[in-house]
């Protein structure tokens, strides 16, 4: 069975791109979320093997969402998607429980490397 992914980003463009990269690599994108609140709800409902999480989103940002998810599921495999210059936020996300990060603009190879590490 394919491994399942929840893609969280407020931009449809980014969600589409990440979904494409991951589905071409054989993952099954089982859900998308466009806010932190949705990310938490969908995580609980879908229990995906992997989550990609944008940092800046409306209605609870990605870091809060990581914190919320890890509160009940400390082993959640969450990969942060960050823009350049957000190092402080990435560090915060890691402390909140995120397992790895990729930096935009995305290179598919980089994203998949990070995914491998997270799922290893």
């Amino acid at each position, binding site marked *: 069975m394919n491994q399942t992914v929840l893609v969280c980003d407020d931009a449809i463009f980014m969600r589409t791109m990440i979904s494409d990269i991951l589905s071409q690599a054989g993952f099954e994108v089982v859900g998308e979320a466009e806010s932190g*609140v949705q990310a938490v709800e969908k995580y609980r409902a879908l229990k995906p093997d992997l989550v990609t999480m944008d940092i800046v989103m409306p*209605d*609870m940002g990605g870091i809060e969402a990581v914190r919320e998810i890890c509160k009940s599921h400390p082993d959640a495999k969450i990969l942060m998607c*960050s823009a*350049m210059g957000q*190092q*402080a936020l*990435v*560090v*915060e996300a*890691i*402390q909140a429980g995120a*397992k*790895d*990060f990729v*930096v935009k603009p995305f290179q598919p190879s980089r994203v998949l*490397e*990070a995914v491998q*590490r997270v799922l*290893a």
Partner: protein
Amino acid sequence: MDLSKYAALFLTESREHLNACNRSLLEWERAPAAVEPVDRLFRAIHTIKGMAATMGYAGVAQLAHGAENLLDALRHGRVPAGPGVFQLLFRAVDTLGAAVETAAAGSEQDIDAALIAELDGAAVTPMGEGEPASPAAPEPRLRRATDAPRARPIQVIITRSAVMRGARAALVLRRAEALGAVSGVQPPLAQLERDEFDGKLFFRLQTRHSDDQIAAALRTVGDVDSLVFEEAASEGVGRGRQIRVDLRRLDALMKHVGELVVAKNRLTALSADAGDATLAELSGQIGRLVSAMQGDVLASRMTPVGEVFERFPRLARDLSRELGKRIRFDMEGEEIELDRSVLDEIGDPLLHLIRNAADHGIEPPDQRLAAGKPAEGRILLSAARERNTVALRVTDDGRGIDRGRILEKARKEGVATPDVESLTDDLLVRVLARPGFSTAQAVSGVSGRGVGVDVVMTRVRALGGTLEVRTELGRGSTFLIRVPLTLAIVRALLAESGGERYAVPLAYVAETVEFDRRAVTSVRDREALVVRDQVIPTVHLRDLVSGGAAVGAPRQPTVILEVGERRTALVVDALLGQQDIVVEPFDAPRGLPPFVGGATILADGRPALILDAAALL
């Protein structure tokens, strides 16, 4: 030669050496056979003696000489070490500390001849060892959380080409934490968040895993260039060369940078209006430089909380003797950094809380045994970085707070209305923090009258921080102080209400929503807003400032304030965006409402009031 200008330096350095003395003494007391603590103690006292003699502080020098004499005798085994000797040395270090302070203040007092005679005597004749100085007091055991098994030094270099090397290093640390206890992180975490991190990370890891297992686990993080189990070179990893700077200079620099930030904000606003490309570019450049400078100044003021923590093991030791209790005192997160100005203010509140924990929290050994607990109580002082704040926790495994009794007392004093049936943690802390509130049946000498939570609350609030409590009867209590990283410059959300502008520190803003009359409900006669199934009580800023209820538009911007787990919805007229604000020192005028925490100058040069989030909850 005029020596007075060296007095400040003498004082700072002596204090450091005296702190080192206390540390070494504690260590030595735990392991009387150890050689290293004695040597360190001897060197520290010797240095103080030399400095005092140079300064012409004869009394200090003589006292130090007495202590040095005794230490020399101990070092060479001429007299044995034991409880009596330790007690005497602790006293000597305390007296020396006081003497150093008065001497540096320019009023050297008469030396304590009796103490010197006692030191001299002990250096010749062994004290009645085997007999503790205060026989009734059980020997406290003190240990740092980072003791055995041995903490292994680890140096990691992150690949040069990696993006966000600091974040990668943070992942390495996270992975290491899963293996064991991490300490001594260099550079500190706050530096990893900035881009100047050079890729070299050092830390200690206390774990039962083998070197190979550790290396394999840490390498899975990715982008690890090299990993060795070696000490950081003293001038190498993460620490450059250092100089001592008078704190007042840094304060002045901070103040100037603060004003520069305000001027920069004005310039940015003006150049946006002017529509001149060259001006806009220049203003952008100045903006970036000022931001960088602001970061540098703030970074130079960041100090590890360990500097304030280091006096507490000694305090805990003394308390346990005084109270006849057995207390193990541990510390965690000493490397977490705080702005100097915040750090200077946080010592006393922590001291209060540790005293409370030892005095009111931890039970005497017989009571503990009767309750099925180990005879030795535990107090843990910890620091952790959480968002833009630092959380300081004092946790004890003692008797906890009896909510029933507090509630009874609160009803009697009219703090709680009769319909309040139980005390939430939230209400509890507010009751405890009432001036003079006390339920201590016997007023003990240690924490004095009352529990002093009001003092802690006042100090913490003055710093823009918050105080929370968690307690469970029979299991213990945790007091949590949350303070902002820095006092000087904070990022704030600007809001308008009734034609006035207000700044709300972002550290306490959870989110902004729209106040919609249709989503309003009421909870215990209070208006509340339903946000995603959560009911949040509302406060209309207009009502607070004008005193009368004003009818606002049907939809108004609303700021959700969050302090700890408490939330409130602050309804305003308009939101004006975010800005770095410089918090001006502020003596609150009489009659000022409690929710005003300070004042600032905004980008257009006009003043605005800073709202105190905790006071609005």
